[in-house]
């Protein structure tokens, strides 16, 4: 156990799995830092965010594969390779690029098992950076997990801390299904305790990050940290339970419903856009499954129904804030 950054936790998960299993390969753009083509360089930066640092040096060009800028080929090749003996981990530098290659994810990889009558496994991971807060504007800062979660056949993972990142990524690599692994770019530098040895965190099991009795706050991804901070601040006046579902598909509605039945109040905090988003999903499911359990109207805090703006002050307004979370919790409890 030692303190590692979110970036390091991901790196360690990949390295340990690659050491353990020779069928795990990485492919993507600039993941070997252009080492495939250029002499005279000083070594790979390990992708745009430095997440893969050292992996090219350790595993070589055969397993850390730089590709042309051709996301359909990258993800499609990962899907084809997953059918034929590898466990590929494909990288979309920014998950926002899914628009040029989604067919290979949602119509191909996600549906193989069903279309083929269960005669195959599709053990692949598509990793990519998500989220706002980095000033990267409309096409490099989207959340997108509600879209991926809508697709049967995909699993969608949204780690909120270094510990989660490592355990969930190892699970994703060992999983027999295609997994979208979403790395919030603002989290890369956050630090936390991470075991040195490999471990897995099962999918579909929410994590209670704060126990409480007055309200259930379901928070996704980066918002878990925000909600934890608010919960700590409000204590002991208010006892706020914070749940981190960790995967949006499967989504642990069981634990959410259990918590809501205990607290009688519900707030969902998510950075994704609102329409057909996680807030709607969680609140809708609670309304269906636990009608009558809510003592107050449930609320959701999400990004607005707008693209991500470039201006820093607007981007800050775009992202749910600790202040809004705190105010909303107070309002719900005040009734």
């Amino acid at each position: 156990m030692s303190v590692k950054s979110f970036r390091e936790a991901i790196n360690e998960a990949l390295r340990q799995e690659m050491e353990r299993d020779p069928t795990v390969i990485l492919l993507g753009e600039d993941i070997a830092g252009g080492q495939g083509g250029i002499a005279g360089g000083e070594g790979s930066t390990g992708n745009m965010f430095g997440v893969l640092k050292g992996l090219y040096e350790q595993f070589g060009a055969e397993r850390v594969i730089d590709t042309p800028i051709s996301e359909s080929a990258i993800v499609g090749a990962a899907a084809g390779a997953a059918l034929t003996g590898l466990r590929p981990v494909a990288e979309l530098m920014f998950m926002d690029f899914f628009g040029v290659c989604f067919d290979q994810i949602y119509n191909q990889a996600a549906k193989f098992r069903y279309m083929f009558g269960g005669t195959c496994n599709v053990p692949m991971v598509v990793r990519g950076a998500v989220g706002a807060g980095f000033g990267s504007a409309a096409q490099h800062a989207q959340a997108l997990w509600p879209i991926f979660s809508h697709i049967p056949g995909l699993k969608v993972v949204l780690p909120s801390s270094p510990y989660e990142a490592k355990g969930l990524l190892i699970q994703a690599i060992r999983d027999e299904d295609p997994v979208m692994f979403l790395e919030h770019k603002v989290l890369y530098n956050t630090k936390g305790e991470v075991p040195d040895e490999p471990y897995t965190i099962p999918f579909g099991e929410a994590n209670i990050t704060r126990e409480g009795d007055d309200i259930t706050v379901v928070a996704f991804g980066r918002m878990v940290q925000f909600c934890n901070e608010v919960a700590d601040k409000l204590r002991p006046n208010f006892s706020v339970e914070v749940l981190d579902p960790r995967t949006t598909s499967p989504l642990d509605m069981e634990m959410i419903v259990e918590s809501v039945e205990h607290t009688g109040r519900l707030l969902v905090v998510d950075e994704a856009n609102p329409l057909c988003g996680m807030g709607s999903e969680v609140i809708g499911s609670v309304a269906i499954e636990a009608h009558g359990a809510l003592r107050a109207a449930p609320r959701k805090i999400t990004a607005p129904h707008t693209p991500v703006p470039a201006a820093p002050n607007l981007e800050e307004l775009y992202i749910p804030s600790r202040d809004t979370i705190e105010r909303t919790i107070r309002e719900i409890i005040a009734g």
Partner: protein
Amino acid sequence: MKKPNQDLQSITELDKDTLLRGYRAMKTIREFENRISIEYAAGNVPGMTHLYIGQEAIAAGVCIHLSDDDNTASTHRGHGHCIAKGCELGPMSLELFRKAGGICKGKGGSMHIADVSKGMLGANAIVGGSSPLACGAALAAKTLGKPNVGVAFLGDGASNQGTTFEAMNFAVVLKLPMIFVIENNGFGEHTGVDYHVGSGDIAGRAAAFGMPAHKVDGTDFFAVADAMAIAVARARAGEGPTTLECLAKRWHGHYEGDPQAYRSKQEIENTRETADPLTIFRTKVSRSGLVSATELDAIDKEVATEIDDAVTAAIVAPQPDPSELLTDVYGSY
């Protein structure tokens, strides 16, 4: 390196067993498809179906060089590829009729029929879907140090899809053991290849990606098999991908039921008369003296029985169990 457009000697080079296997595949495709066409018209086949008739020599000539460990990714017009790749007619028929016991339990149907155990990674209802997938299989072979290849079947229409071009460059850059088999059958749906390929030269486009690309007579089993032999040898030797543009004609409509208003009756009749891969095969082998007409006739008979058995059984087979709706979405969830 040997070039496929040089004078070919393959009739004498291929052993008799291979010749008979190739013929059997072609004949099976032809008669199976004819039967499916009849059953489709009779309303017995659910959904859309695209028939391969007229292109038999391509699937057969390509797959004659492949084992179960060589992987092919196919198209919406995939029955021929299945048969040539060794899928069994019984489960195939059940699948096309969407019945219990189908290769895909009846959940895939004509456009998603697959048998991964046979290296048939699925028909594909997305035009251009096949090439990236086959590249993945080629990448797996390369990474695992196996001598196998990936083969993408795709049409002239699919050759305009961005995924196809990406895959071509990708395969060249990574020197993948890949073969792109482009079946130029004159049309993408209703639209002629002369219209939709701006350069008029599909193989030329592929060559510009930096790989050998050959135009081949796709109605001639031997022309296809010879070109494929070279491509496969190159791939297995680690020298990278090849494209084969195989020219043939689609005999039927784009899908069964297509009135083909965009095409003259005359052209269709001409095609059937002058470009029949089975006739061409028979003529060539009989001239070579290697195989007798009697031997081929015997295959014809066996094939007819086999098809009739498979299709008849499929028609009367039960539908999938209702519980199948919810299975096979995930390995675990």
